[in-house]
């Protein structure tokens, strides 16, 4: 087991390194530079000299790459040209925002998705199953950012029930220091989280319905019924426990989905997270913010897969035994 974990972690680090390397070279190959006239107003000459020396911007690209890796090894992610602050700081501000958004979306996704999927499986081929199935298929087919725009139009602009964007009220609540401001934050979080969560929930429901149906037909479920257990107990204990196994794959897959969705949803709701930071940095050729974002997102994806594999081992003893033997 330990050997397996060590090997997986080593492979994960190699993957992240490869992603960062690719991103580094591609974004440097892109036309334009952070110092072109149109953006140079935001960078003072002193900073340019300092960064040029620190990262060897006047040297060949491969030298810059080696320098970047050396800086990375000491925990220095470089400096943002446009934001005039260390990349690590910019990321440290953005990551919690994306994380909270993704977590809230994940909760909605799994809670709604699981409940719907189980309900549909239990009432297979009833009117409710068919109607919900079609609604789920439709919602799952929507572009997330478009659903975001529609929710924004209906709930923020027409009904004024939610704010049109941002993470908190900039005047009343510049930082999270009171219960009222926490409420304000949740109020701002609702629409973006619903947008991401509902599209995901529709997919989860479809997946969970299929998994549950497969399990319900198994003999041990029949056995459980035959020995006179309550239907609720049969479904929620005997069937669901086994139907959750494929669900774990979804946990791993949810990470890239949420990160991808977050890029667009954050743009729609002006949510100051990783996605918005990355999109802006790519457009402005803010090299080290882009590579930093690549580092963080690929680490999250790889971690998600690792966690899913570990959860598998915990949930399914057969895998644990095989993993220990290997």
């Amino acid at each position, binding site marked *: 087991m330990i050997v397996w974990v060590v090997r997986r972690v080593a492979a994960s680090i190699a993957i992240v390194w490869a992603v960062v390397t690719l991103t580094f070279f591609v974004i440097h190959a892109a036309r334009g530079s952070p110092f072109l006239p149109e953006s140079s107003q935001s960078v003072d000459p002193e900073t340019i000299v300092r960064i040029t020396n620190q990262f060897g911007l006047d040297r060949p690209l491969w030298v810059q790459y080696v320098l970047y890796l050396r800086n990375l090894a000491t925990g220095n992610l470089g400096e943002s040209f446009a934001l005039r602050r260390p990349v690590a700081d910019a990321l440290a501000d953005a990551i919690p925002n994306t994380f909270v958004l993704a977590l809230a979306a994940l909760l909605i996704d799994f809670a709604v998705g699981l409940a719907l999927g189980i309900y549909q499986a239990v009432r297979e081929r009833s009117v409710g199953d068919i109607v919900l199935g079609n609604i789920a*298929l439709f919602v799952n*087919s929507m*572009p997330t950012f478009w659903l975001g725009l529609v929710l924004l*139009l209906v709930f923020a602009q027409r009904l004024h029930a939610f704010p049109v964007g941002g993470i908190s009220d900039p005047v009343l609540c510049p930082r999270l220091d009171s219960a009222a401001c926490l409420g304000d934050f949740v109020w701002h979080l609702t629409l973006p989280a619903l947008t991401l969560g509902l599209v995901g929930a529709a997919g989860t429901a479809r997946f969970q319905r299929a998994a549950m149906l497969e399990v319900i037909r198994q003999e041990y479920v029949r056995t459980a019924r035959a020995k006179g257990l309550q239907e609720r107990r049969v479904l929620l204990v005997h069937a669901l426990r086994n139907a959750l196994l494929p669900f774990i794959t979804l946990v791993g897959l949810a990470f890239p989905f949420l990160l991808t969705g977050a*890029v667009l949803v954050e743009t729609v709701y002006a949510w100051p997270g990783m996605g918005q930071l990355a999109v802006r940095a790519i457009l402005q050729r803010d090299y080290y913010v882009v590579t930093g974002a690549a580092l963080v997102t690929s680490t999250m*994806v790889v971690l998600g897969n690792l966690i899913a594999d570990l959860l598998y081992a915990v949930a399914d003893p057969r895998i644990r035994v095989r993993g220990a033997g290997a």
Partner: protein
Amino acid sequence: MNIWNWVALSGAAVLALIVVGAVRRRAGASASGRRFFRHPTAAPGLFVLTFFVMVALAAPLVAPFQPYEQIDVDHLQNHAPSTRYILGTDPLSRDVWSRLAHGARISLGIGALAMFVAVTIGAAVGATAGYFRRWVDTALMRLVDVGLAMPRIFALLVVVALWDRIAVPVLVLVIGLTGWFATSRLVRAEVLSLREREYVAAARALGARPSRVIVRHVLPNAAAPIIVSAALGIGNVMLLEAGLSFLGMGVPSPAPSWGNMIADGWSKMAVAPWSATFPGLAISLVVMALNAVGDALRDALDPRKEAV
């Protein structure tokens, strides 16, 4: 919309119905065809797809205006849907329906072609890895691990930044080139089991070269999962193209794609919701139809999963 546009549009709908009917009759002859149409959403899904393909093909006939035409910049911005402009006009006074019809060509075309690129590469890489195993397999699959570790939209944004104004064929290639990773894993898994079959051993014993064995004997038997993943993948590509165009990094502006139509209409969402709402509905409908057809295809081509 004038009378001829309506005639053309109804013609497209009737033709789509006829096509679906004909396919259904044909499909009735085989077990997998019957399984396909037993899926309740298969026929409606197929109809929606055929209908939009017809609209795309007949765009000049069903659209009353040119997609770029700014009908009256002074008085016809954000005109609400009416009999003349059935889906309204956008902030630049262009007819939304005309752009939607012409945009179908670009959006559906990108979806289908990019998926074709992705599936071709994915099948080739997956088959090579699965057939030769050893270091070839290791090298290719590590590459796939790297590709899958980058959220796709992020990878695409970085790559698209290489061009100032990306041409649509290049966009198709770029989307295809970043989309084959999952398919290759799927094909590899399939090939790993197929290569041990006796007919493969027989072909090899007869002296067939590996390329022939893969193309003639292995891949045709792995076709079912490839087709299903392609059908489901087209929808994914369309969503991706929409997202990219929405961020202003996909199809460049005057050309209509459903994604950049949403982007164009977004700023006036409060006063003229139609110009961003209808293209989004069109994407949702087509992707839904693709998902429905993909699900039905899975049931039809993979009888093992029929029970579900």
